[in-house]
C-alpha cells in the first residue's frame, strides 16, 4: 500500500469535481444552503393536469427552459448543468474532458405530446392507433421525436459536448443507478483504463404517466397538503416516496494523477459494493441479506471497518418498506452503534430523484466531509418506534466526518453502496 494505492494495491480514486441540480436549485452552493437549512423542494405539481391523480406533489425542477420539454430533453439539460459544474471545478476543459462517460439516465419513451402530434398529421386517414402512427412516420422522418425516444441519445450529446472518450455507457439500475454510474467509473480507474472519468446520474422524467405508474404500485406519498411535509423518512406515518428530478455529476481521477496535476482533492471514493436480490420485483428479501451484503461489500471494498464510518447518507425513501428494511440492514451491520451513528435522508427535502439519487446523494456526502455539516432528515415529527436511529432530526448538525456510507436500493433487487472518505493527508 503506497501513498496512491489502497489495501489491495489498486489505485486510490480521488474526487476532484462535483456538480448538482435539484428542486432546491442549481449548483452546489444553492443546494447546500437549502439542504443544510432544512428546506424542502417538494411542491404541488404545475407541469401537468392533476385531475384524478391521488398524488399531486413532486420535487420537479421547474426553473429551466427545458422543464416543460419532455423527459429526454430535461434529463439531458440537468446532466449537462451538473457536469459543467463538476468538470469546471476539477479544472478540465469543459469541451475536452478526455476520459470516459458513465451516465445513469431514465428509460425514456415517446412522449404523449409527440404521439398526439403524429396522429394529428394523419387524422383524416383512418382510425387512431399504431398503424396510423407508423403511416405518419412514412410521410417523412421525425428526427427530433426519434432522438427523444433513443436511450443512447443523451449520452451521445453529452459525450460530444464534453469531449469524453470512447463509447459512453448509459445505464439503469433503477433507484441505484447514480451509484452504479460512480461504481463503473471507479472500476475503470482501478483497471487503469483512464486517469479520469465523468460519472453522472440524471432524471427529469416526472410526467403524468410516470407518476401514475408508480402510483399504481402504491409507492408514492399521497400527503398532498402541505407538500413540503410529504417526504418523512423513518417517521411512523411515512406513506411513500415523492418523485423528484435532478442530477449529480462527479469527476474522479486516480489519486496519483490528480496529485501530479496539482488538482484540489475533495475526497476519496474508497469503495463500492453491490448485491442483487432474488426475492421479489418490488420487495426485499425479508431477512435483508442482499442489502446487508451490499453494505458489507462496500466496506470490504473500501478496506475499512464499520467503526470507521462517521455518517450514513441513507437511501431513506420514506416508503414503509424501504425504511424498515434499510434499518434492518444497517442495524445488522453496525450493531448497537446504529442508535448513535448519524443517519440522514436527503430525500426528506429533495424527494426521490430516482435515476439521479445515488449520484446526487454521493455529491452531498462529499460536501458533508468537506464542510463538517450533516444535513438533517426533516419532517421527523413522529418517530417510528421500530427504527431506533439518530436520523439527525429536523436540524443540521456540525460534526467532524471523515467517512460516509451512501446507500441506494431499488426495484428489481438493485442494491449498491458507496464509501467516501476524506483526503488521506
Amino acid at each position: 500500500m503506497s501513498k496512491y494505492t489502497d489495501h489491495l494495491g489498486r489505485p486510490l480514486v480521488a474526487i476532484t469535481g462535483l456538480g448538482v441540480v435539484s428542486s432546491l436549485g442549481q449548483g452546489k452552493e444553492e443546494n447546500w444552503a437549502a439542504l443544510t437549512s432544512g428546506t424542502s423542494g417538494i411542491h404541488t405539481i404545475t407541469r401537468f393536469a392533476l385531475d384524478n391523480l391521488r398524488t399531486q406533489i413532486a420535487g420537479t425542477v421547474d426553473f429551466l427552459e427545458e422543464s416543460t420539454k419532455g423527459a429526454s430533453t430535461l434529463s439531458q439539460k440537468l446532466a449537462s448543468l451538473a457536469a459543467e459544474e463538476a468538470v469546471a471545478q476539477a479544472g478540465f476543459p469543459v469541451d475536452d474532458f478526455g476520459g470516459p462517460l458513465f451516465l445513469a439516465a431514465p428509460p425514456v419513451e415517446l412522449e404523449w405530446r409527440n404521439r398526439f402530434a403524429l396522429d394529428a398529421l394523419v387524422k383524416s386517414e383512418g382510425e387512431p392507433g399504431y398503424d396510423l402512427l407508423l403511416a405518419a412516420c412514412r410521410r417523412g422522418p421525425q428526427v427530433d421525436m426519434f432522438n427523444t425516444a433513443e436511450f443512447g441519445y443523451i449520452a451521445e450529446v453529452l459525450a460530444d459536448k464534453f469531449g469524453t472518450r470512447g463509447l459512453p455507457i448509459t445505464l439503469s439500475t433503477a433507484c441505484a443507478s447514480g451509484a452504479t454510474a460512480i461504481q463503473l467509473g471507479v472500476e475503470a480507474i482501478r483497471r487503469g483504463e483512464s486517469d479520469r472519468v465523468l460519472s453522472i446520474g440524471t432524471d427529469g422524467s416526472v410526467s403524468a404517466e410516470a407518476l401514475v405508474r408508480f402510483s399504481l404500485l402504491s409507492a408514492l406519498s399521497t400527503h398532498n397538503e402541505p407538500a413540503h411535509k410529504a417526504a418523512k423518512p423513518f417517521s411512523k406515518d411515512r406513506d411513500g416516496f415523492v418523485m423528484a428530478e435532478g442530477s449529480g455529476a462527479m469527476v474522479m481521477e486516480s489519486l496519483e494523477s490528480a496529485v501530479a496535476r496539482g488538482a484540489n482533492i475533495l475526497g476519496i471514493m474508497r469503495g463500492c459494493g453491490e448485491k442483487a436480490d432474488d426475492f421479489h420485483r418490488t420487495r426485499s428479501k425479508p431477512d435483508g441479506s442482499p442489502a446487508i451484503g451490499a453494505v458489507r461489500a462496500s466496506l470490504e471494498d473500501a478496506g475499512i471497518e464499520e467503526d470507521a464510518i462517521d455518517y450514513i447518507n441513507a437511501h431513506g425513501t420514506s416508503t414503509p418498506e424501504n425504511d424498515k428494511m434499510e434499518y434492518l440492514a444497517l442495524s445488522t451491520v453496525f450493531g448497537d452503534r446504529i442508535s448513535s451513528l448519524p443517519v440522514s435522508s436527503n430525500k426528506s427535502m429533495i424527494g426521490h430523484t430516482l435515476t439521479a439519487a445515488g449520484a446526487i446523494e454521493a455529491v452531498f456526502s462529499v460536501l458533508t466531509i468537506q464542510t463538517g455539516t450533516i444535513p438533517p432528515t426533516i419532517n421527523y415529527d413522529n418517530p417510528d418506534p421500530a427504527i431506533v436511529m439518530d436520523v439527525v432530526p429536523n436540524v443540521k448538525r456540525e460534526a467532524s466526518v471523515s467517512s460516509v456510507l451512501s446507500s441506494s436500493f431499488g426495484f428489481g433487487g438493485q442494491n449498491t453502496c458507496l464509501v467516501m472518505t476524506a483526503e488521506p493527508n
Partner: protein
Amino acid sequence: MQNNTVVITGIGLISSLGEGVDAHWKAFNDGLEPRIDSETFKPYTVHPLVEVDWNNQIPKRGDQRQMETWQRIGTYTAGLALQDAGIKDDESLCASMDMVVAAGGGERDVSVDTQILAEARVRNDIGTMLNEKLTTELRPTLFLAQLSNLLAGNISIVHKVTGSSRTFMGEEGSGISAIDTAVARIRSGQSTHALVGGAYNSQHPDMLLGYELNGMLKRDGWAPLWQREDSAGGGIVTGSGGAFLVLESADHAKKRGARVYAAIDGVYSAQIRRRRDDLTQTVAKLIGAASSDKAADLIISGASGAKHVTAVEKAALDTFSSSAVRGVAGKLGHLREAQFPLVVALAALSVFNGSAFPPVDAKNERAGPSDVNTALATSIGGTRSEGVARLVKV
C-alpha cells in the same frame, strides 16, 4: 493487476430460427430460408420468435405473468446460457455471478394507447383525459413488466443470479458495452464469472415505431442483407430473439472442468460523431485493431440492414480480403441490444466448430475458409456506436 484470459463457457440463443446452440448452428449450416412475417405489421416485415414453451426456463406461471415478451425472451435465454454452461443449478456459482444486461424498453399496452389516441381526437381537456385513462386502464404490474432493469431483476428472481446486476441501455451500443465491461472486469480480476446478454421483441408496433420515426425500416418485404440498397424504406428488418453468454476467467472455467467455446481476445469499441467523422475509416480501424496480430479467418457481421451504415460496413469489411464474411441479420433479423451478444455467440460457435457456415447471401459472401481459428464479430449501430470483438480458439 491480473491479466486473465476470458472464455465463453455458455451460450443461450433463441430467435426465429429456433432455440439453443444446436438449432442455430444447424439452421445456418443447412441454409434454411429465413422465417418471416410480412403480414401482421404490413408494410413491415419481422422475423417472428419461434414457438417457445416458457415453462422450460421460467417454471412459475406467476413469474411469466410479471414479464412482457421482451423480458420473457431474455429471462428464458439467460436460463439457456446458464444451462449450457452447466451452472444453472449451482446455487453458489449463481449467487456469486455478475450480470450485465443490455436492455431496451418494454412493450406498451397497445389497447390503452389506442383508446387514448381516440379520446384525444374528441376531447379538449387532454391532460385530464390522459389522467383518467391512465389511472383506470393501465395494468398496475405493467410498469415493472416493461421497465428496463427488470429483465435483470427477473433473471435474479428466476435463475438466482445475484452477484451483481447492472443494466446498460442505448440500443446496439449497450450490447457492445455490456460485453466489453464484463470482459474487462474478468480480465483484470474484478470478476470471475459473468452472465451477459440481451433480448429484443420485434413483434410489437411500439418497437417498430421507435425505428420508423427515423424512417429506418424496410417497407417492401424481405431481401438479402447486402441487397437492400434499392428497396423501399430504411433497410432494417427486425427480429425477435435473445442472446446470452456465460463468461469466465480461463482459470475459473478450468477448475470446474467447463467446456470452452472460445476466448474473447479483445473488444474494440467507439462512438464517433457520424455527421463529422468518417464511419468507413472507423469500422476499418476497429477491424484492423482486432486483426493486428493476424487477420481473422471469419467475420460475423451484425450489420443491421440500415442502408447507408450497412453499405459502409460492407465496404470496410471488403478491404479485409483474407477474412470470409457472414452477415446474419438477413437470416434472423436485427436484434438491436442483443445484436452484439448474438454475433459474438455465433463467432464463438464458428471458432469452436472450426468452420464457417455457408454464405448467407452467396452473391455477396464467399465460401470457405476450411479452417476457422479466429473470428471477429461486429455490431455497427444503425444510428450510433461501433463495436468489434475478436474470438480465438482455446
